[in-house]
């Protein structure tokens, strides 16, 4: 599907209008995908923990839009939009969430832990913050090889408390590496409000502690995010060294689909639900003279087709075969030697 060749910036010669419509399409696709995943989870078709990024689409869209092929991205656990924007096939992404053979990890790992390096998307572990040192290492490779690529690491304001985040930013600052740190500050880390997470206003203010610049922006305002992202990413690409962008946003749903989130105030939720990035951007497109009713209808249809096709593909993809659990433990060695012996050791227990 053409629209999955990756972010619009990668599509040469797009006009501004085309570009903006493309951004709109991405946000809508991500939203529809998120909602479908939540539904599939209720239907027990997506197992394990499901972390919705609904309401935060403008961040992923705005940050990924200026990226190019060859750039490296480590998404956080709510960023399924990153996979779509980077050109990962929606069907394979859906298969990943359903633990199917055609999923990115071939059913081995859950949700967004499966990566797809062929599209520069790193599958992060669950250990929050641990992907920042990895992104810094990717940036180190770019600088050693004098490649014009950049690395991007997304993290939450909660993950910001991990030591890995400090170690990563400090080294990036010392070596002036081409890496962008994106903090999605959605005010909660599971049940923990930002005030209990840090005694400061902005995580981005920490950038100065490492010798580079931090920027704060309204994360539900696509124009603001994409505008800032373009400037910052250009300067990183030009050798300006690392930067941090903190996007103020809000987690609409519970921490995971299991979490009713009773610990937070409904007023606050309502206020932030009213900061929906999509109608806000539609309003802008209207000012640009687009016929919104038509645009909505067309986009919804495209989006729904794409999502439905993804679900169909994933549903038809088989579960992996049991024995595959012993594959891919080691690169290019088929069965893990230890696993082979384990199978032997377990003998009858396993083979019967």
């Amino acid at each position, binding site marked *: 599907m053409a629209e999955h060749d990756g972010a619009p910036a990668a599509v040469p010669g797009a006009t501004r209008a085309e570009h903006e419509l493309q951004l709109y399409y991405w946000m809508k696709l991500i939203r529809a995908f998120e909602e479908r995943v939540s539904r599939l989870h209720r239907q027990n078709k997506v*197992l394990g923990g499901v972390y919705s990024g609904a309401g935060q689409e403008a961040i992923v869209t705005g940050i990924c839009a200026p990226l190019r092929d060859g750039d490296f991205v480590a998404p956080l656990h709510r960023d399924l939009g990153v996979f779509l924007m980077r050109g990962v096939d929606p069907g394979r992404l859906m298969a990943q969430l359903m633990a199917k053979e055609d999923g990115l990890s071939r059913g081995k790992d859950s949700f967004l*832990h499966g990566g797809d390096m062929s599209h520069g998307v790193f599958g992060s572990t669950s250990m929050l913050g641990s992907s920042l040192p990895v992104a810094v290492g990717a940036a180190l490779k770019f600088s050693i090889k004098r490649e014009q690529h950049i690395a991007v690491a997304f993290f939450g304001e909660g*993950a910001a408390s991990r030591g890995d985040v400090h170690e990563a930013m400090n080294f990036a600052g010392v070596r002036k590496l081409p890496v962008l740190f994106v903090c999605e500050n959605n005010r909660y880390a599971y049940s923990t409000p930002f005030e*209990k997470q840090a005694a400061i206003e902005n995580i981005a203010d920490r950038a100065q502690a490492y010798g580079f610049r931090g920027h704060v922006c309204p994360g539900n305002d696509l124009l603001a995010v994409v505008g800032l992202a373009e400037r910052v990413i250009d300067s990183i690409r030009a050798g300006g060294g690392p930067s941090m962008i903190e996007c103020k946003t809000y987690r609409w749903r519970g921490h995971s689909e299991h979490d009713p989130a009773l610990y937070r105030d409904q007023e606050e939720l309502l206020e932030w639900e009213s900061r929906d990035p999509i109608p806000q951007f539609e309003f802008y497109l209207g000012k640009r003279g687009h016929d919104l009713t038509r645009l909505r209808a067309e986009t919804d249809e495209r989006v729904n087709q794409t999502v439905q096709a993804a679900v169909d593909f994933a549903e038809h993809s088989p579960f992996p075969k049991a024995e595959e659990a012993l594959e891919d433990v080691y690169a290019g060695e088929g069965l893990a030697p230890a696993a082979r012996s384990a199978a032997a050791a*377990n003998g009858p*227990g*396993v083979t019967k």
Partner: protein
Amino acid sequence: MEVTYLKAINQALHEEMARDENVLVMGEDVAELGGAFKVTEGLLAAFGEERVIDTPISESLIVGASVGAAVLGMRPVVEMQFADFISCGFDQIVNTAATLCYRHGGKASCPMVVRAPSGAGVHGALFHSQNPEAWFTRVPGLKVVAPATAYDAKGLLKSAIRDDNPDIYFEHKRLYRSIKEDLPDGDFTVPLGRAELRREGRDLSIITYGGTLHQSLDAARIAEKEDGLAVEVLDLRTLLPLDREAILETARRTGKVLVVHEDRLTGGIGGEVAALIAEYAFEYLDGPVRRLAALDTHVPFAPPLEEFVLPNTNKIVNAIRSLAAY
């Protein structure tokens, strides 16, 4: 009155905090939320936010700070939201806490407990299914417990909290709501370092702990019913120090031992147990010391894969049969 494994842990925390004002609870989302699994539910209301503390996402700080409070006489019980994340507080446990008494010449102690919800079989995949106990059972200065019943969950946690050393307490997520018991009301403890014989039998011994105890007991019953085999089941309960006497006794009694655990085979505690038997019960052995454990891979996500990797009643029955037939 019937109490779940989860509720038993929650009771132990309530009772110990009421009993000793130096006990405090700290971790991510343990206060307001009552923990990701509700294990610490009600503590904030009962004991206030000075003793029930929500921390930032900082496992190393959580453990390190509890060492600092412990060395000054507090008895912190800290929670890793999932045992898998204990890797992020690893250095503070194995170095700062485990060696504290030793490097202070015995004149300081570190009475703390690290609670770690562990175990697979809940579609948790690679990072929400781990059984990390064997990383710690090789570290002198630590004690490691892994209760398999509600009674032990409560009694061992109380003992761990009252113990003057750093204890790592692995609670199995799959058992939280799946097992229920009538518990005596009032205060009781279970001694650290003592295994418990859950079932007697002369033909063969299963040595296990935690998540696989119940599967082992089921398997033993099946083997009795279907094959007339009398299988003895020893629940280790404490993994460091191991109850050598109990392990060697059962091995000597039956002469055939099957070690079972949910942790993976290579590097799991089964190796240490088998080695003890091969060295100190050698003369009594009528067959090889067998081990049944998770396969040497990561705990995968897709149900058929997870099923294939983890031990279960069926696999244990088969292992019993083949060892009995030896």
